[in-house]
């Protein structure tokens, strides 16, 4: 007869399994859950404006406390479709006492900026990083500015696993140049980091900044999608130059990604997505193009939902062998909230005013709010490629209306980055080649031009 602890060890996972099975037997096409009801604010919580410093610091206490229940609740409220893989794995493994990711060891990596010295070591080998230092000293920040400063370090320096493909590109400058792995004016390579991996080896890894920092001339634009970075080409270059074998079908898929796109889902569907900008994330009611997560409508759980996304993303990318200190995930969320788009274009062109009127007439039913995003829409109503929305990994059945902040600088368009320009987006001829999103294609040419003029000011 097994003892209580053993029975619990067996029965609790079985219970969760049976619950999960019930979820899995739902309709193959996931039905989006309605927007969550705002969580009641405990009476003892001081009333502060959402996303103000005292409000965020109060939420930090909830996220970082020993009690896992606030994190568990925020996770459950944030997942739009509990049946997809993204949700199931998190529901099964996050903020549980009896098993799962909370039991992984915390890892504060020792890191070092990738510069000419590291590049030279990659060429001459072997790579050693004697001056790598812990990314964090373990001291918890007490102000929002301190959290953001720490989050910036996480954004640029916390490795999302070692990457042999990046190492190869850094060792071969012509490859780096060809795939958009750029060196900043200070000699660093944003999005890469030297670090001591958990097997003790010195490696180069990739970070958030690889995809979400653009290098434009002398400027490093933090938060902008790196749309000239071709991750698939970088991987293919490794195989081409080394002769390391690669499945022919996989090679074809990577070649089709092109700059600014990659397949980021856990399934085997071919559903690459465009890298997104990170402007005004606090205002977004849905995170990811498939609206995988509720966000701004979660009230006090919104920042927890974003931090949980970062925490689980980092631990998953690092092969679930460690987890980041939760303070670093929170810091990253605070830094992401702080990102602001570059100054907008101001124009007194009358076309802009006319375009504004057209936008209000034809577009605001879907594109609304401070970011121009809005309530997610069933994929069949938009008519774009439904693979992501219906995919087993992130599928919710819906797509998030694209945020429109600095939309003129955000080409290519659609969730999968297949429309080259605003002109093509509204060109009715486009529909025969790239279906979906018909609004705007029925405008007269002059109105289309006015609408585009307005969009360029957002």
């Amino acid at each position, binding site marked *: 007869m097994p003892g209580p602890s053993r029975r619990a060890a067996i029965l609790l*996972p079985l219970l969760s*399994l049976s619950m999960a099975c019930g979820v899995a037997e739902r309709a193959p096409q996931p039905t989006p859950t309605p927007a969550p009801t705002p969580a009641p604010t405990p009476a003892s919580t001081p009333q502060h404006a959402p996303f103000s410093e005292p409000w965020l610091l109060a939420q930090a206490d909830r996220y970082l406390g020993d009690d896992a229940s606030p994190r568990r609740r925020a996770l459950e409220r944030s997942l739009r479709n509990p049946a997809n893989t993204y949700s199931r794995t998190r529901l099964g493994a996050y903020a549980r006492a*009896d098993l799962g990711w909370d*039991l992984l060891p915390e890892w504060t990596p020792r890191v070092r900026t990738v510069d000419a010295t590291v590049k030279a070591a990659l060429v001459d080998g072997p790579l050693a990083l004697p001056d790598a230092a812990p990314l964090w000293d373990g001291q918890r920040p007490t102000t929002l500015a301190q959290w953001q400063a720490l989050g910036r370090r996480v954004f640029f320096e916390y490795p999302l696993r070692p990457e042999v493909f990046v*190492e190869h590109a850094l060792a071969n400058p012509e490859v780096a140049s060809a795939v958009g792995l750029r060196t900043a004016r200070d000699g660093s390579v944003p999005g890469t980091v030297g670090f001591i991996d958990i097997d*003790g*080896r010195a490696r180069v890894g990739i970070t958030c900044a690889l995809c979400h920092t653009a290098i434009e001339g002398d400027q490093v634009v933090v938060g902008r999608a790196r749309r000239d970075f071709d991750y698939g080409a970088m991987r293919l270059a490794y195989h081409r130059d080394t002769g*390391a074998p690669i499945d022919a079908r996989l090679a074809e898929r990577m070649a089709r990604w092109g700059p600014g796109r990659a397949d980021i889902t856990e399934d085997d569907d071919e559903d690459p997505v465009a890298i997104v900008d990170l402007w005004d994330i606090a205002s977004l009611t849905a995170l990811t193009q498939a609206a995988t997560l509720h966000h701004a409508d979660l009230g006090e759980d919104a920042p927890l939902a974003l931090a949980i996304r970062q925490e689980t993303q980092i631990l998953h990318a690092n*092969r679930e062998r460690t987890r980041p200190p939760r303070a670093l995930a929170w810091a990253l969320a605070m830094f992401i909230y702080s990102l602001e788009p570059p100054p907008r274009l101001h124009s007194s062109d009358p076309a802009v005013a006319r375009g504004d009127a057209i936008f209000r007439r034809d577009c605001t039913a879907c594109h609304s709010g401070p970011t121009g995003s809005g309530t997610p829409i069933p994929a069949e109503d938009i008519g774009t490629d439904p693979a992501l929305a219906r995919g087993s990994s992130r599928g919710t059945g819906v797509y998030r209306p694209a945020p429109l902040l600095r939309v003129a600088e955000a080409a290519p368009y659609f969730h999968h980055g297949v429309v080259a320009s605003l002109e093509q987006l509204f060109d009715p001829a486009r529909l025969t080649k790239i279906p979906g999103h018909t609004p705007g294609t029925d405008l007269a040419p002059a109105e289309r031009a006015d609408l585009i003029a307005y969009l360029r000011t957002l």
Partner: protein
Amino acid sequence: MPSHRFALLFALLLPACTAHEETTTPTPAARIEVKVASVQLVQDCSDPPGDATAEAAAAAAKPSEPAQAQSWASTPRVAPAPGAGAAQEISAGASLDGSGPGWSPPCTQSTMQLSIANVGDREGKVHVEAVRLFDARGNKELGKIQARKPSQWNPAGTYQPWNESIVHGTTVKVGYRLGEPDWSAVNTILGGETDPYARPYVLEIDISIDGVSQTVRSPEFVREPVHVIAT
């Protein structure tokens, strides 16, 4: 029976009984609690030759365990990248056959991580006896997976070889490399589904603690394609 005969019989039987207790009563197993933190099922890679210490530690801990298959030597050999010294670090095993440095195919090792707490008052010894793959939906057993190379997390921020012993009053975070199940057999059991990657699985793990077996289950996980960078 005269009383002195009772005394004699008692005197003769007492040591025998005592000896019997000493030889037949099992030593209580250490009180050890095992929980599964994570599983990632991606690929089974060659063990880097630098892991000699790990192999020695594992061998010392499990002298009766069959030798693990060493697939490193069969890793496809490729030409070195011109001017890319990183190859020496990346493909450390390339010199095994004397051919010098070279690049090897990228490989992401499947692993499982456990949290093991010794809440008793004596040192304990653990050993993973069996790992079984289950379909999380139908709860069907799909195959067996071999666990090898036990390693333990240390405060310096690395996993180090582990001899599978745990002192009392401590909790260790440990990892094992995992082999692959027979995926063709798995697909047959599952009815030939088109996307085995999208399916949720769980592991059931038999662990021996001082010779006493217990079974734990993992959280759900999916088999991850090698190409993705999940975000």
